[in-house]
């Protein structure tokens, strides 16, 4: 087994554990490369029968190509897709000009919390990776959130030998992280090996490409000439820039993402 085989096998094991233990289970699909790889892994794990719905929290600020790609893939793969938007916050004028962290909390965290409450999800599969950012590097594979989606990272139970946390208080939910051990370059090498469709925004046009995708006002493309998967892999081998350097909310303060995640951000 090579490196990608091992990552794939571990992720499939995690997805199957999640499906076995949680009756009400959903998978967050941001339309980005990571959660699209995760969708692919779910098709593999369940032999082409992804048995749970996908959830897309739409802030209405997403880059339009992302929404087109989302709807096309959902149709091609016959996916069960739940789209949710925090309309109430939007009607009250929420937007990045109110403060980036405030906006992320309202449109993404609260938007997600609405779906969790409405469908009473016990398990949410999320495609975060340890190498993205410091607070994500501390995550467990099965990580508990209380009814308000808050994360108590100071007192996480041990996670030994792939025996994940499957017992929890009613009302709480478990975030499941099948991609925790993947690196950015692993994702792209896997996209290449499996020929997985990804949104065109990742490929350079006029010297710019998106390395990480989010809302249009807070996501900037990077300088790049990588116009296909091979070139992206080559670029990543030689860069020292962080993956989320184009994501404005991370730069708000030194601990921005940690603070967001404590209150339920993915």
């Amino acid at each position, binding site marked *: 087994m090579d490196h990608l085989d091992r990552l794939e096998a571990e992720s*499939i094991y995690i997805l*199957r554990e999640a499906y076995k233990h949680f009756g009400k289970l959903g998978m967050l699909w941001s339309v980005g490369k990571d959660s699209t790889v995760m969708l692919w892994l779910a098709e593999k794990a369940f032999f082409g029968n992804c048995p749970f719905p996908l959830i897309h929290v739409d802030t209405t600020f997403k880059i339009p190509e992302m929404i087109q790609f989302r709807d096309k893939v959902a149709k091609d793969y016959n996916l069960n897709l739940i789209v949710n938007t925090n309309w109430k916050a939007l009607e009250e004028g929420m937007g990045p000009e109110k403060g980036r962290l405030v906006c992320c909390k309202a449109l993404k965290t609260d938007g997600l919390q609405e779906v969790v409450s409405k469908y009473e999800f016990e398990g949410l599969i999320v495609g975060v990776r340890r190498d993205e950012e410091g607070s994500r590097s501390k995550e467990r594979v099965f990580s508990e959130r209380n009814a308000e989606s808050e994360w108590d990272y100071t007192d996480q139970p*041990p996670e030994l*030998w792939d025996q994940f*946390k499957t017992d929890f208080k009613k009302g709480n939910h478990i975030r499941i992280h099948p991609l925790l*051990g993947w690196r950015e370059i692993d994702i792209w*090498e896997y996209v290449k090996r499996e020929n997985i469709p990804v949104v065109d925004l990742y490929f350079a046009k006029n010297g710019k490409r998106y390395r990480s995708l989010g809302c249009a006002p807070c996501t900037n493309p990077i300088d790049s000439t990588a116009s296909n998967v091979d070139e992206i892999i080559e670029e990543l081998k030689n860069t020292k820039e962080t993956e989320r350097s184009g994501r404005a909310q991370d730069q708000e303060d030194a601990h921005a993402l*940690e603070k967001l995640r404590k209150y339920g951000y993915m």
Partner: protein
Amino acid sequence: MKGERENLNIVVVGHVDHGKSTLIGRLLYDTDSLPAGAIEKVKKISAEKGKSFEYAYLLDAFEEEQKQGITIDITMIQFFTKKRDYVIIDAPGHKEFLKNMISGAASAEAAFLLIDAKEGIQEQSKRHGYILSLLGIKKVYVLVNKMDLVDYSEERFNEIQEQFNEFLNNLNVYPEKYIPISAFNGQNITSKPSEMPWYKGDYVLECMDKIEKAKGIEEKPLRFPIQDVYKFDDRRIISGRIESGSLKAGDEIVIYPSGKTTRVKSIEAWQNKDKVDVISAGMSVGITVEDEFFNKRGEVICHKDDHVATANIFNANVFWMGKNNLERGKKYKLKIATQEVECEVFSINKIIDAASLKTNTELNYIKKNDVAEVTIKTKTPICFDAFGNIQAMGRFVIIDNYDTAGGGIISNVDDVINRQVTNIKSKNITIRKRLVSRKDREEVLGQKGKVVWFTGLPGCGKNEIAVKLEKKLFDIGKKVYYIDSANVRFGLSSDLAFSPKDSYEQTRRISEVANLFADSGTITIVTSVSRFREAREYARNVIGKENYAEVLVEASNEICKKRNPNAFSEDCDSVMDYEKSEYPVIALNINDAEFNSDKKAEAIIDLLDL
């Protein structure tokens, strides 16, 4: 292809403030593995907090960790050398966060244990050393850090090495190497130490690249714990991860604990490009089988010759991380591979203070951070292996309330009572260690201990065949013994008559005795009417399916009466009723009161390959 690169997980442990995060920060810095902006970010944070540059901040991502200057939770950092990829696990050294340290160390293949040269060996240095040994991590490197604070003294280094070896060797832990370093000054990390010319060994990075990965899990016996069974379409797919060994379509497999046998029909995949002929350890797979009897999560698929142990009582070492004590007799949930079962600590045999190695005599509960030798009893039998043989099948966790609160290792399966143990009235008993195992005895005798159980109505000819069988086996040099149930009634069962209740008890006693004989390596012949199906099932469970051969001797009522008129004078109406078994048995038909018992005995030797 890059994908073929090797990957190794290393955990860094040690007492709080002995420099774990600094070492890792230094490794990343010196090998140019840090992302752009990380150094600036740490400079900024260090300055904000009025401190000089802290390598540890590169890792301690959480604000609270930086405030307190300690690592609270594990951090996993990816890093690579020319040779291979690494995941470095930074585990907290504070006693309060021992559970996090164990979480981190559990997935590691090698360990760096740091000791502050000035402060010397501390409580957590010892406790971590002990826990590494319990977790089965054999490749332990002791890094004596902060050598700059002791003027890079060789003498001090040797002193620590001597003291710590004395402690570790007592636990059967033998570190691969001791390495003197100064993480802060970058001495002996990624290059030869300019300040320690007396040190002739490898520097840290060289040692890392020389660690050899454990190999050969694919060559071990097959263990495929069932994770789930899917029926999305017309296929019934058994899914799971192969923990050891390998499997291909057409293989004959045995599913434990039920012991049912079938063949692999196909290996399934979503897309045709992923279809393979052989699946092996580490892969998450799906198969279909020829006989679709009910299978469920928790069962373990093995090949016939080398299978898991199955028992509901066994010895283990546990370490406890729970807020509440682990109490003897209280019910907990135990998870091992994909099995989940209710369990209790049946007896606590020894509690060890992991730092002083003193033995505690209070044997009713286990406190947080204690390590103990215990006997565990599960509600129903589970499948397992010795941890040293197949790790994934020899380690388990214990759940208290909602959380994993303890971990355990099954170190030995030789002492396992391979059966379901129930109704134990004694309280203060434990499975005691022995120095000679059944396997040892069988090897010396050159035979497998087993029980040939003759059943059938009185007068059918059981005894006559059994006597011949014993003589024939004895003559070819086998160690054999015949337990005649009629004779047992003169002694062991002199208190029993022929009522159904007494008949059950008679069968129970004979099965227990026969099991002991079989355990001694003896081919044990039993004759027992044992007309009740349930009683024979009991015997088969006690003795173990693979060691139990049932031979039904059938004769008509006339023949039986003719051969043994006395048996039918007993005052029991149903004496001529016999309940047949539901599983296959060897049936011998007796058509004539004067049958040839030698031929029948020989047939059994052939059939059972005795």
